[in-house]
């Protein structure tokens, strides 16, 4: 892995053992700037909006509504939506419903491996304020304490038509240049990381999963 050669503050990676610490990058993430020429940025946003690659990670109940979305009746392909199996290549992360603490660790890991610009859609009412699991010891209540959320689609579970409506709304937001969740994450990195570490107790991965 590439190590950080700059003199700016690096991450501690305290959760790793000393032998493992050499294997992982300890640089802080950086925010990206939009293109200087506005026409290029608009065109880039248009391309990003019309080619939404979703990470195929069914985190909760929402996964059962994502499957019909890809089949013939609702056909997400005509909106430019395709499922990718690896976070490296996907740009949209749909958190389907509740997140247990165990899943949240994997969500954080996958989210940090995605390449910017990246967008998060929170499905259902559980990421809003706990939903059905508001008093459960194992599920988190507000998703945007841990990763930045661009769009909420409420429901328990919303039907695929609602999901399609949400995707159209996300496209409008991307074309208007309003979806900068990745930059928000980098700017408030310490706050998000502190929140994550407060609930995820067995942090045996690097502080930022490059």
């Amino acid at each position, binding site marked *: *892995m*590439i190590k950080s050669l700059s003199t700016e503050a690096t991450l501690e990676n305290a959760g790793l053992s000393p032998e493992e610490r050499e294997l992982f990058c300890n640089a802080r993430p950086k925010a*990206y*700037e939009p293109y200087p020429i506005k026409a290029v940025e608009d065109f*880039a946003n248009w*391309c*990003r909006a*019309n*080619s939404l690659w979703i990470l*195929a990670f069914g985190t909760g109940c929402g996964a059962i509504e994502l499957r019909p979305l890809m*089949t*013939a*009746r609702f*056909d997400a*392909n*005509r909106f*430019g939506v395709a*499922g*990718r*199996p*690896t976070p*490296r*290549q996907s*740009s949209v992360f749909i958190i389907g419903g509740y997140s247990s603490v165990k899943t949240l660790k994997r969500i954080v890991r996958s989210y940090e491996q995605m*390449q*910017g*610009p990246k967008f998060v859609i929170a499905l259902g009412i559980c990421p809003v304020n706990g939903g059905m699991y508001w008093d459960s010891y194992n599920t988190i209540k507000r998703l945007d304490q841990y990763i930045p959320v661009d769009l909420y689609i409420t429901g328990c579970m919303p039907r695929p038509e609602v999901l399609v409506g949400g995707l159209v709304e996300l496209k409008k937001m991307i074309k208007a240049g309003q979806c900068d969740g990745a930059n928000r994450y980098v700017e408030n990195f310490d706050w998000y990381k502190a929140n994550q570490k407060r609930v995820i107790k067995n942090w045996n991965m690097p502080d930022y999963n*490059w």
Partner: protein
Amino acid sequence: MDEWLTRIGYFSLTLLIVTTYGLIMGAFIERIIAKVQGRVGIPYSQPFINILKNIFKRTAVSHGVMFYLGPVFRMAGGIGTLAFIPVIYGSEVFGNFSMAGDLFLVIYFMFFGQLGMALGAGESGHPYSAIGVARGLGQMTSYEVPFALAVIAIVIQYETLSITEIVAAQQGGWQNWTLFTNPVATAAAMLAFLGMTGYSPFDIFLAPQEIPIGPPTEFHSAYLSLLQANRALFGATKLILFMNLFFGGATGLLELMIKTWLIYMVAIAVGVAFPRFRVDQSIRFFLKVPTVIGIAAIVYVQMVIQQ
């Protein structure tokens, strides 16, 4: 010097047209499959938008020099393969850099691209990339056998290693196509073609449900856009090569498009009828019947044509 510049200019034009053609044909095939499944399918511009979106990604993670060079090698293999195949016979614009021994050079470039990709995927350190690479290269080695035998058969038949002369020998009516003068070699090569496209049923090494998509697992952003562009370019190039060797070449763009589309539909028709094969099944398949047909092609040439 001027002549070289014009030739390079013409080649760039060919490259652009062939890549665009490959991308549109991919979208067209997707729409046909969607029609069969009863839905609308992707818009025709979708493959272009996908490549542009990947170019416009603002961050990327590199794993080293070889990771960076992997897609570059792959693209070099694709461009190199196209550079020595005459796309349209008799045309100065689309004639490319065809020369005396270019058939073997073309086959070398086809293999070279895959090897570069394997090195790049190995450098990424992702265990699934390594498994995908092992599967892909294993399959490639096995389908190269009948393909090489078929190529040797037609080289002996036409007594030349230049693709332009092979196309020239097939002009003058459809009876002169290698399909009809040497059907055994065509059969062996078409069976090898099914594996070459990386399409079902031989797509185990890059299917998304199989240990995330094999060799391109770790490639993203601009690296992935190189790989995607190469996929279209290389696919179209293989079709043009097969059209030149076995189906009489093309003397016009329209004839080129129709013939390549029909050849690709053969692969699609087989693909929708069969489930995916495991790697050991596909290796065993290619080393049995198509290899025997390939050997029979050489024997056929010796005994029937040379009499």
